[in-house]
């Protein structure tokens, strides 16, 4: 019985782990190895990790491709961990910043919401993470998340409001909805109806691209 695996993996946007080193061995041949101007850390849950897909098909890798193509020599590290909640993120943020990122993209919270964790706790966890990054002057791109309507209008709106609130208070670069144009479209999601396909990630990486460029510009101004 794959019970235990289902317990963890099936329950939500799953799985984690944070294979920062992945992009340290780039796909491009040695001779064309780009010299990176900086590091972007994409932290998040299975939606960042690319659950069920190759890492090369998840949005961080696609984003790096797009950035390189547009002349931004940034390395994007996929630090997504499937199944991770904001509490988990808060626990590992100290470790994550040892990778000394120049920019951090935060996409988290969906796993908390699927378990209907108190929205105040979610907000508190995210704020703690943001404060640690702010302390180090790291520009943050915050990706907004929505939750299923069936959880109830009150909870869903309380949850969705966390993101613009935090972005406003802390002056973050804010992408209103991470899964814009992808969520609810069966063709762009895997069978579970939750996790995007490679095609879905192409759309996400293009959607998030301008916000990341804005973060790079902010970094340059520093």
């Amino acid at each position, binding site marked *: 019985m794959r019970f235990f695996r289902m317990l963890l993996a099936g329950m939500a946007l799953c799985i984690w782990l944070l294979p920062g*080193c992945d992009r340290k061995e780039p796909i491009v041949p040695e001779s064309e190895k780009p010299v990176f101007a900086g590091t972007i850390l994409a932290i998040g849950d299975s939606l960042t990790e690319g659950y069920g897909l190759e890492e090369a098909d998840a949005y961080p890798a696609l984003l790096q491709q797009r950035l390189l193509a547009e002349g931004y020599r940034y390395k994007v590290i996929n630090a997504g961990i499937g199944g991770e*909640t904001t509490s988990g993120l808060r626990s590992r943020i100290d470790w994550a910043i040892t990778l000394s990122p120049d920019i951090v993209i935060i996409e988290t919270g969906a796993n908390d919401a699927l378990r209907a964790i*108190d929205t105040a706790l979610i907000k508190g966890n995210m704020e703690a993470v943001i404060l640690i990054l702010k302390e180090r002057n790291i520009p943050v791109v915050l990706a907004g998340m929505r939750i299923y309507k069936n959880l109830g209008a009150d909870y869903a709106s309380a949850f969705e409001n966390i993101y613009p609130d935090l972005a406003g208070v802390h002056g973050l670069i804010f992408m209103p909805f991470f899964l814009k144009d992808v969520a*609810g479209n069966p063709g762009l999601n895997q069978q579970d109806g939750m996790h995007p396909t490679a095609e879905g990630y192409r759309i996400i990486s293009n959607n998030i691209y301008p916000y990341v460029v804005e973060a790079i510009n902010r970094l340059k101004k520093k």
Partner: protein
Amino acid sequence: MIHKSFIRHQIIRSRNQALLFVMCVVLSIIFMVALGGFSESITYSLLKDAKSLHAADIIIRSRSPFSASLKEAVVQLEQKDFVESESAYEFYSMVRDPVENRTLLSGIKVVGPKYPFYGRVELHSGKELRETLEKGSVIVEKNLLDRLDLQIGSPLQVGQATLQIKDLVQKEPDRPIRFFSLGPRVFVSSKDLSELDLIDKGSRIGYSILLKVLDSKHLNRIADGLKAVAADHERVETFRSAESRIKRFFDNFLFYIGLAGLFTLLLAGIGIQSSLTSLLKENEETIAIMKTVGAGGRFVITQYSLMVLFLGMAGTAVGIASGFFTQYALVFLLRSFLPYGFEFIFSWKAIFQGFILGIVVVMLFTFMPLLRIKDIKPYAIFRKERPAQPRLLWQALISIGILSLFAATVVWQLRDASSGLRFAAGAIGFILLIAGMIHLVLKAVKNLRVSALAPRQSLKGLFRPGNATKLILVTLTASLTVIFSIYFIERNLDESFVRSYPQDSPNVYFIDIQPNQKADFSDVLGNDTVYYPIVRARIVSLNGNPIDRKKQRMRRRDNLARMFNLTYRNYLLPDESISKGKDLFDRNRQGVPVSILDTVQEMADIAIGDTITFRIQGIPLEARVSSIRTRTKGSIQPYFYFVFPENILEKAPQTIFAALRVETESIAGLQNRIVSRFPNVSVIDMTQVISTFAGVMRKLSGTIRLFTFLSISAGFFILISSIFATRLARIREAVYFKILGAKKRFVLSVFAYENFFIGLVSAVLASGFSQAASYLISTYFFHIPYRSFLGACLLMITGAAMVVCAVGTVASVSILNKKPAIFLREQSEG
């Protein structure tokens, strides 16, 4: 050419042997009929279970609203009166106590009045769901009342609707056995669905359509028709096709019953053969005289064949009649002992099959002895030696004929050619192996020197010409092997299932505990909690070869390309054992050790000493496989494929999973305490899953026990009758002993020694064979860990030796009481 009086005379003269022959036929048929009825009953109640596990014959599921074409197809089926249908919606939602304004995540299930088509939703009031679940009402799990501090009659807000709690749900038939619930169940009537206002484009809903097929013949046709119109996201399942581990287990088990039944039938056949052989042996002189006075071989064979046919038919008739009653008796007797929900049904099919099998077995096993008649020469009246062996070619041809008939029967019975043939080959190989072993044992015994008179006489008795020692040893060893194996397999199955749901197994899981919360958590929960740290990782390479992710993902089952949960601990879990390797982490080897679960070997060819490179938190970790673990498959306990020593992973980012046994009534309180102190931790109540699971397992072990009882008792009867058959044949010696002046006691002790020797040798051999057989069956067929139960094994050897000794000796007592002269006179009549 039928000489009725001759046949009648022969039967009366050898009435004991004739009776035994008939008895063996009767037993084999009774057993086949009872077994047939039994396995049909299992199939029947399994199907019934499967229906209630789905609450329907056909269930169509989807994560998004059903397509128009599918809905149209269902409507048409309904209009044609092929099916009845009902819709159901399942989703999570925050329900609210409108008075105190407290909320709780709950598992909502919206159903219509026809739900469920099969099985029953058990309510606290004892009423039916369809009467109770009216518009405006909800039926909830007790846990919800406890956690929100509500009572029956309180209002409850679900979505936009405020409903009234009417009753408590105690059990729902189609709650999936592997379902882990994040919140208590809330049943809502489909009449309130639109008022809830929760089903929307941005909702995550499990949609289902349940269908009851009015004529079960059309099940597959209807399901196929629906599959043809279903869109990609719509899954059509029938209660038969739905994959479940339990069902697969039962399939294996039914196959095993068929197999064990065949073995028992084989034993009955050997019983038939041995009783007929000794019957004909008694008549050898008659045959020789008949031949001397000019009777042709064909004539003699015809007469004896007719006799066997008559006896066989008598046995079959009695067998069918008793099988008929046996089935009724089983229905009646076992009803109260049967596991809940198991019904014993009466099966005409089983009776018919028993009849056919009875005839086939009689034909198969009487052929050889009858053919020997041909070789009895007239001079056999004067000489006491064995008739010359029939020519090799003939014997080979006959053997091949018998074997193919046997194989055909097996294939027919198992309904699968390759396993049937393998079984037939295995059975023959097994008999040959036993015969070979016994040959060696007898050879060794022959050279034994014993000084005491009685044991010496008994050993000599084994090798007297015309003695059926080898035959009886083979028969006994084979029967005991079958009986022992069935017993050991029962013990092993039972042990595995009992162990997979121990009374104190954890029923409450806590997920997402953060490392810095562990100490506080232990304070709240106490020391009995088991903590499982979880570190997520991918596998990069195996023995230096990168994982071919594309190829891995093509695999239909589990694959190495996915993310794995690693853990660390320095001990085995209670349901684990090491199948290869010295201990969990072989400290003598270089490098980082990792212990893998045997399931990993199904994904890739991995052995001890192989190197697996993981990537944990971006950092590669090269580990060497130090041991391979196995676990009770089918157990509901958490397990990990990869276990590391504590010091290796301790520092890696991780979350912790905990499991604890909590009394049902204190779960809600504990959930409230945990949530208020550790709001990030989700508490999952597994009690219902575990109790459903335990129910199934209890049923399973009850069924297995019943089967074991049936087959062991049949085996026992056959054993006794074959001892009788062969013992009677060599009673003449008793007479000679008496003529030579031996006291009754001496003769008895000679027989007792001899029977004890026979019993002991066959029991010891059988215990060896049965250990091997049940090891193979447990490991490769049922995939459960094997234990040898040495104590029980010794007990069974002793018991079997004593039974054989007692029955064999008792069979001789009747002769001992006769005056030698009378016996001799009886023997020379004819």
